């Protein structure tokens, strides 16, 4: 029994989202044309999250993928909050003051972000007040600090990451009188998430990465071929520098127990992450919070379990590595994706598949006859040409979907095998996770006319 192509498509396309930067006077002045994103769950519910937003008080666009572990709570919280922290970090002093005054006097707030969300990307209503208060405390501190210097994007990104992780940790320690919220903040803190976030402003592209998701630039060479440039470093056991860093931060006596079976303390794959207070708090703090926490937490073996050889916390940080890249005309697109994609596909193949896809459908604006004089023959010639160009990507209107189709359905020849695709997608929930991971992809397309 196989899924039919329409069934496969409806699964693959369930979460797809596209955003086109609006044009003015028929021209797009932004360096970003738009983006396609999609995700395919393997876990039920999916533990990956994605976010995209345009900064309204500063210039630039933010895009990020978040890979949760030990549940989706942390990834969810980070996907809702991180961009606000970044946006606030980037705001000039006057704007911060203006916002604070507005809140103080109950006036309408300047909007900070314009979100670009798929209907399935939700925000927690219950926690919004709590999150807002933490954010406000942050900007109040920024106002007090008033350094007077222009904000450096790299610094802003690092500060925002660290501050959010700190707030997550604090909220869990303080707790909340509302039992639902109390449990929520604890779940957020005890689960974990990696984050890979891009900030694009004109030709300045910054990628801040924490964990093992990855950002990759698609570059078109002069001969038309495609190559990949990494814009992030994986924070895991395969990265020598990361292993070195972790070892430097702890006494020599722990050297052997720090990284075991390619995992931090033998447990955690990513070497940097949000949340995961089990790798950050002292044993006493963990015990105290768990014991005073709600029963659900107390009954949870995972939260009560203290990692072995746990002597000199913290072992984990949310501090990102930030890479700055000046966009060049040959830089055509950026792929942000969680490790679910990179496990199955080499970045070189990713660059080629997306590149070919984008050049193929790039010109596929729908044809309209309108009032023009067109003969059947002319129209036929035009259509045949268009079809030849896109035959391989005919089914997908979304680059991320197209990439997922390849990631899941590729056979040994590198082409999509419907049978394999159908099998992989019809795996029962409990088996799916054994054959593939959650996959989340954002493909940002750059505007060569501007760069």
């Amino acid at each position, binding site marked *: *029994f196989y899924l039919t192509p*329409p069934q496969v498509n*409806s699964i693959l396309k369930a979460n797809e989202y596209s955003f086109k930067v609006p044009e003015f006077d028929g021209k797009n002045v932004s360096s970003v044309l738009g983006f396609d994103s999609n995700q395919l769950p393997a876990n039920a519910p999916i533990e990956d999250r994605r976010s995209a937003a345009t900064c309204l008080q500063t210039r630039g666009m933010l895009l990020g993928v978040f890979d949760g572990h030990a549940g989706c709570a942390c990834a969810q919280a980070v996907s809702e909050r991180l961009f606000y922290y970044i946006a606030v970090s980037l705001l000039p002093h006057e704007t911060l003051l203006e916002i604070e005054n507005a809140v103080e006097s109950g006036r309408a707030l300047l909007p900070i972000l314009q979100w670009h969300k798929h209907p399935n990307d939700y925000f927690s209503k219950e926690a919004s007040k709590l999150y807002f208060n933490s954010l406000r405390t942050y900007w109040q501190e920024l106002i007090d600090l008033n350094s007077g210097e222009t904000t450096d994007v790299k610094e802003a990104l690092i500060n925002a990451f660290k501050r959010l992780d700190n707030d997550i940790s604090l909220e869990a320690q303080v707790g909340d009188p509302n039992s639902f919220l109390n449990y929520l903040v604890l779940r957020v803190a005890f689960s974990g998430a990696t984050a890979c976030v891009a900030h694009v402003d004109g030709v300045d592209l910054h990628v801040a990465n924490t964990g093992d998701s990855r950002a990759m630039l698609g570059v078109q060479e002069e001969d038309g071929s495609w190559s990949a440039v990494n814009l992030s470093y994986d924070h895991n056991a395969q990265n020598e520098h990361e292993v070195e860093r972790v070892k430097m931060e702890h006494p020599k006596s722990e050297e052997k127990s720090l990284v075991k079976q390619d995992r931090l303390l033998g447990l955690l794959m990513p070497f940097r992450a949000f949340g995961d207070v089990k790798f950050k708090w002292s044993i006493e703090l963990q015990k105290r919070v768990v014991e005073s926490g709600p029963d659900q937490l107390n009954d949870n073996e995972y939260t009560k379990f203290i990692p072995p050889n746990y002597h000199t916390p913290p072992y984990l940080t949310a501090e990102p590595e930030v890479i700055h890249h000046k966009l060049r005309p040959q830089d055509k697109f950026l792929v942000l994706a969680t490790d679910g994609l990179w496990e199955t596909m080499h970045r070189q193949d990713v660059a080629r598949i997306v590149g070919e896809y984008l050049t193929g459908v790039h010109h596929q604006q729908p044809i309209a006859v309108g009032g023009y004089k067109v003969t*059947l023959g002319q129209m*036929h010639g035009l259509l045949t040409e268009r079809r030849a160009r896109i035959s391989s990507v005919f089914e997908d209107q979304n680059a991320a979907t197209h990439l997922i189709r390849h990631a899941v359905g590729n056979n040994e020849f590198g082409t999509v095998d419907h049978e394999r695709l159908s099998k992989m997608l019809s795996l029962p929930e409990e088996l799916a996770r054994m054959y593939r991971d959650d996959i989340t992809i954002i493909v940002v397309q750059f505007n060569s006319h501007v760069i």
Partner: protein
Amino acid sequence: AAGMFLRLLSDVRWRAANPKWRRMTCSRRSTSSTAEPHPVSLPAQAQVVICGGGIMGTSVAYHLSKMGWKDIVLLEQGRLAAGTTRFCAGIVSTARHVSVELKMADYSNKLYQQLEQETGVKTGYVKTGSVSLAQTQDRLISLKRIASSLNVMGIPCKIITPKQVAQLHPLINIHDLVGAMYVPEDALVSSANVSLALATAASRNGVQIHERTSVSHVSVQKGHVTAVETDRGQIQCQYFVNCAGQWAYELGHSGEEPVNIPLHACEHFYLLTHPLKEPLASNLPTIVDPDGRIYIRNWQGGILSGGFEKNPKPLFTEGRNQLEIHNLQEDWDHFEPLLSALLRRMPDLEALQIMQLVNCPESFTPDMRCIMGESPTVRGYFVLAGMNSAGISYGGGAGKYLAEWMVNGYPSENVWPLDLKRFGALQSSRTFLRHRVMEVMPLMYDLKVPRWDFQTGRQLRTSPLYDRLDAQGARWMEKHGFERVKYFVPPGKDLLDLDQSKTFYKPDWFDIVGSEVKCCKEAVCVIDMSSFTKFEISSTGDEALESLQYLFSNDLDVPVGHVVHTGMLNEKGGYENDCSIARLSKRSFFMISPTDQQVHCWAWLKNRLPHDSNLTMEDVTWKYTALNLIGPRAVDVLSELSYAPITPEHFPSLFCKEMSVGYANGIRVMSITHTGEPGFMLYIPIEYALHVYNEVMNMGQKYGIRNAGYYALRSLRIEKFFAFWGQDLDAFTTPMECGREFQVKLEKGMQFVGQEALLEQKQNGVYKRFTMFILEDHDTDIDLWPWWGEPIFRNGRYVGKTTSSAYSYTLERHVCLGFVQHFDEKTGEKLVVTADFINQGEYEIDIAGQRFQAKAKLYPFSSLFTHRRRKDEEELSGYQRE
């Protein structure tokens, strides 16, 4: 003309809202002086409210009012004929595969032809004829089968050569054609104008038409329609007719009592061009090129061409709020394959200028047949929708049948293939419909070969043994959402894949089914028949027996433990259902009916059983797995597994006993097999299914047991001359006409439904007779196989059609079953059919235009079969179902 058409629409809009509408319908000029800004208020009550002012709604209104019903209100949310009807390509084509559809189209054609004269409204009717092209031999066979059907119905139709095609159309390229079918009486109309003409006539007959009025929902009390709620107030009514086209599904679900109308819209594209330099004549025939998936008609001196692509675009899955029908986009890339096909067929059109690509959604149904009839749950709620893009061809006929249904209680033709009650809630999932219509729309032009199965929307209902059987090589078909085994592919045997095994000739499973049949005859086979509909009817007193005695024709007052085969007849004595009923106790009965009876039979009984709290009826279909243990060694297997004597003395034929099989107790065992072969049906509570199956297979090993499927069953029962309901038997067939007088107890001491009609038939004779035909000069290996619907000729004259056929592995011949009628040679009047009339003819069966000699028989060949049965077992024969 498009402008003209719009002007006409706007005229009608406000005329309909004008109180003087009735008097002014003929004089269009007078309308401009009496603009009336405020619409007339709705009546507070009416006998019938029709929702939908397209071709369906207006046709129903037209026919109802013609039949004498006057108190009718037709509501249209926008303007008359402004939905799909307005965009319809306007081709009236009678080339249809299903006989009732063919009749509807033929009637529509005749109705439209005289409509202009009758109403004074220009309908644009032009008799152009149509030419259906064949690019392959298989396509030509398919066309020849249709041609045979059309010819015996008196509709002129010819199979022609490619050269003749070129003479009929100046632009056509014929080099890749093998032949074509020409239907000279097919026509073109302006569909919107036909609809307006019907509305005009209906309005003259007293029907009130209100535009810009939307129905929000239908109110129901005690299972009956009571009122219609609209945005302009309520109308109380007895009947509601849902002709809402692609909104019919949503409207059906808007009330508290949902009415399931399984249909789903797909985008449909056609192209309009400017006129040619030398404008095309308006009487040029319409070209249908199914292999190229396109149709081409002349339009305003240019052409109109659309088609049914392989990759349709379903829409409105989430309901109407998605986007408005008028704002749909042209999608040229999507249309490209159809445009290529068009230019291949008519290369000279290259220089022709495009006017517009029209995107006009059409609604499709799960089985490509339209939806008609009364809701099984809400009485007085009628539906006519889901035309699968043939709305204009069916409009007249469908409206007529539905009107007859409402006025007379049933149409003048068997419309079971179109009956809403062939579906239930199980076909109403939006996901199912979305996936299924994506398969149905391309099917419009796919080759219709025998025994094709839908590929989408499968594995919905399955037996608990599904995985076990599948692992043993089962190949599946689907009936009413239930997966049933066709046959088992033995290990190591490779069948052709699906596309290649589609054939009009001998199929690749021929030997496989042959060996299953052989095993049924000589040893024992097991067939999973869990899909059958099963009801339990019981009462605290004698109510159950009394009611059933009235509703069924056979005598059900039999000793406990007996099984009775009986028809569930209508007033005319026709089969509404054909079932077996076991008397479990004095006051409870177990009833088994065909799979697709689940909704129809339930509604039929619910509406007729007394509303008595002492009487309960339960649908237990899902509670039992049914295994058919079939063959001479079935008795050995069963007795070893139950340690109970199963000899004919202890367990005679047509008997039902609860017993243990293996460790499982409470298995309902019946000595029937639905084939006339010896054996047993086991009704097993589902949690025991796997156990009992394993036990049977283990124990059966030494008796040579194997799995078998429905194709084997089908061959067995057709060679035994068993009719099955839904195919051979329908609401227009009585037991007297199919040799089943013995299943009718006219003297059972009480009245039953259909008794009078049967008595009359007994006295006066029957006008058709179920007959078995053995094909004589037919070579199974090289000749076309019969399917069903083949014309039967007696002494060279048409006497009827076959209803089913199968290859008999015992007779080594093809067997066709069908009805023979006797038409007076001069007047064509139907005469009584006697046994002599049947026996004294020379018969031929027409398979796609080729005639094969056939021997007619009124009784099965019991002597030819090795197994001889006692007298009471003879009763088994003549009983069957699908």
